[in-house]
């Protein structure tokens, strides 16, 4: 899968950043049948007392993960082409960037979930009397929690959503505890593309590393970049991170070998210690429960490798 929302944010910084920045604190909106958009809590799902959606179309890979995690998978009639988890989700060719909501009508959805509303799909769906829920990229784990709970309310699985959130935090805490202090203070660089776009600790993915006490080398460049700065090769050589996570393995076929072959990188500590970790691009760019747990486990395994390699 090559959905790389985080990377796209790096380029369309202003527009996407406004979405991302809002995600942790601003509730998503749902447009009910025949009504102006209202807050999700009072509009649908069991909490709001309106009709429970039975034909959900998810055009967000992260939302798809959340839907199945909270037990709403049976209500899902379609997911976008980038939703690869769970594997048995009814995938369609939709991207979420369609210009006309009419494309979705053959699936007869009663709730459409989007990550972005780039083509004014919400207004179109509203005029078609189809409820919508926009869940923009979360910038923190807490932001993802909020979205899971909102989805729970919107789909009639509020209690299960609460349980999932608690479970995610329990699992995350367990993984962090298993690593202990071994990762504390260790520096890392996460690569979103081969031109050195990266993510700071202020992003969703960066906040995961922070839980392990790791230090993001991109933070020094993050002040004017909405969390996704473009670094330079020279800065990477100077900062010499302990770990490198390559989140451009699918889009750009990068690997530990291609990374080490770049000018001046053969002597990097991470290369020398075999700490260049390939990551599926989508795992690093999605904020669903599966991606979160997968990435946390990946960090833990990377640190275990460090222990095995004999460094302090």
């Amino acid at each position, binding site marked *: 899968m*090559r*959905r*790389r929302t985080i*990377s*796209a944010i*790096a*380029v369309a910084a202003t527009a996407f950043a406004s979405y991302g920045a809002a995600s942790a604190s601003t509730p998503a909106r749902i447009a009910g049948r025949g009504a102006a958009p209202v807050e999700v809590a009072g509009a649908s799902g069991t909490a709001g007392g309106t009709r429970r959606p039975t034909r959900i179309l998810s055009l967000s890979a992260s939302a798809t993960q959340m839907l199945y995690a909270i037990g709403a998978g049976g209500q899902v009639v379609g997911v976008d082409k*980038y939703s690869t988890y769970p594997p048995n989700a009814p995938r369609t060719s939709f*991207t979420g*960037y369609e210009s006309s909501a009419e494309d979705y009508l053959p699936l007869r959805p009663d709730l459409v979930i989007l990550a972005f509303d780039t083509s004014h799909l919400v207004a179109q769906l509203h005029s078609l009397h189809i409820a919508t829920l926009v869940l923009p990229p979360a910038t923190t784990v807490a932001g993802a929690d909020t979205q899971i709970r909102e989805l729970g309310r919107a789909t009639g699985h509020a209690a299960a959503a609460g349980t999932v959130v608690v479970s995610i935090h329990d699992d995350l805490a367990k993984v962090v505890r298993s690593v202990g202090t071994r990762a504390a203070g260790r520096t890392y660089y996460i690569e*979103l*593309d*081969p*031109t*050195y*776009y990266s993510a700071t600790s202020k992003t969703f993915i960066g906040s995961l590393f922070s839980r392990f006490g790791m230090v993001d080398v991109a933070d*020094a*460049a*993050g*002040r*004017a*970049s909405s969390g996704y*700065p*473009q*670094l*330079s*090769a*020279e*800065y990477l*050589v*100077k*900062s*010499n991170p302990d770990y490198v996570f390559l989140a451009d393995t*699918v*889009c*750009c*076929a*990068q*690997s530990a070998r*291609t990374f080490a072959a*770049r*000018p*001046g990188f053969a*002597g990097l500590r991470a290369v020398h210690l075999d700490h260049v970790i390939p990551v599926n*691009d989508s795992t690093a760019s999605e904020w669903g429960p599966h991606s979160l747990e997968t990435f946390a486990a990946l960090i833990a395994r990377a640190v275990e490798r460090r222990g095995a390699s004999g460094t302090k």
Partner: protein
Amino acid sequence: MSEGPRGAAGEMQPTRLHALHVVTGVAFLLAAGLGALLVGPAGIPPDQVLAQVASRIPFIPIHSHLSATADVVVWQLRMPRIVLGGIVGAMLALAGASYQGVFHNPLADPYLLGVASGAGLGATVAVVELPHLRGLGFDPLPLAAFVGAIVAVGATIALGRTRERARDATSLVLGGVAVGAFLAAAQTFLLQRDTPVLQEVYTWILGGLSTAGWSEVELVLPYVGVAATVLILCRRLLDVLSVGDDEAGSLGVHADRVRLAVVAAATLGTAAVVSVSGLIGFVGIIVPHTIRLVLGPSYQRILPLSVLFGAGFLIAADVLARTVLSPGEIPLGVVTAFLGAPFFLVVLRQSRRLAG
């Protein structure tokens, strides 16, 4: 003093390239290169950088004590970036000046005949359709961009053929507009189908030297060398063309042949450099026009000096791109536009004031 094309007031303009012009251009280029060599997020003391460079010059008895890391920064990261920036800037400025000469169009730039849209489509095809090649250790993007640019201009030349004249300037420009629009539409279609590649494609379109290495220098140097040589050799013919195709014909110059040779050489060089740097705008307009405003319209001056000042301009712009938000970077194309447009306006106003 030799005289050449007429200026705006009809007076004959000097054409000879003075040593002072060349010395100024070389000094600007060296100053930009030196600044780029000494500045960077690694924070290596300038005296150590200079000692390191001097230690590699034969017969200079200086020994450098730079660390291995600093040595890598100087010779594998900064130096190829400076050299590549110089090559790209020189080629874009030279191609822009040449296009302005053969099309009698002050707004002509290296992308006039579809190089940008062709290269952009090629890059998009490589990213969308050929990602598996990267796994085999071959990055198809530069080659695809190069081929796309060549094909686009080839199509423009073929479409620009008219009955009355083999390839007149207006027909070629209009052909370029049509081809550019068609290829841009094809690129948009591909991107629309595969939105996750938007970031990579647009990063390339914005232009930059962040991944510059000696291999990129080696890759483009032969093409740029051939193209630059042809264009420089055509500088006198461009002066003749400036009086008009018919008048040039009466002087024994085949305008359409010259135009074709210049377009072919400029396209070859431009396609080569954009394949490794992406689409860096403004250089091909700002640099030649600044020289023209200061030294007059003769291409015998503009073309050689475009090489020196184009190289220096892009190296200086790249210094800004990598230092303004250091250790972060700004896309180089953004810097050239942001820096170049106001600078050009200042030169334009100054020139008018002097003329008035």
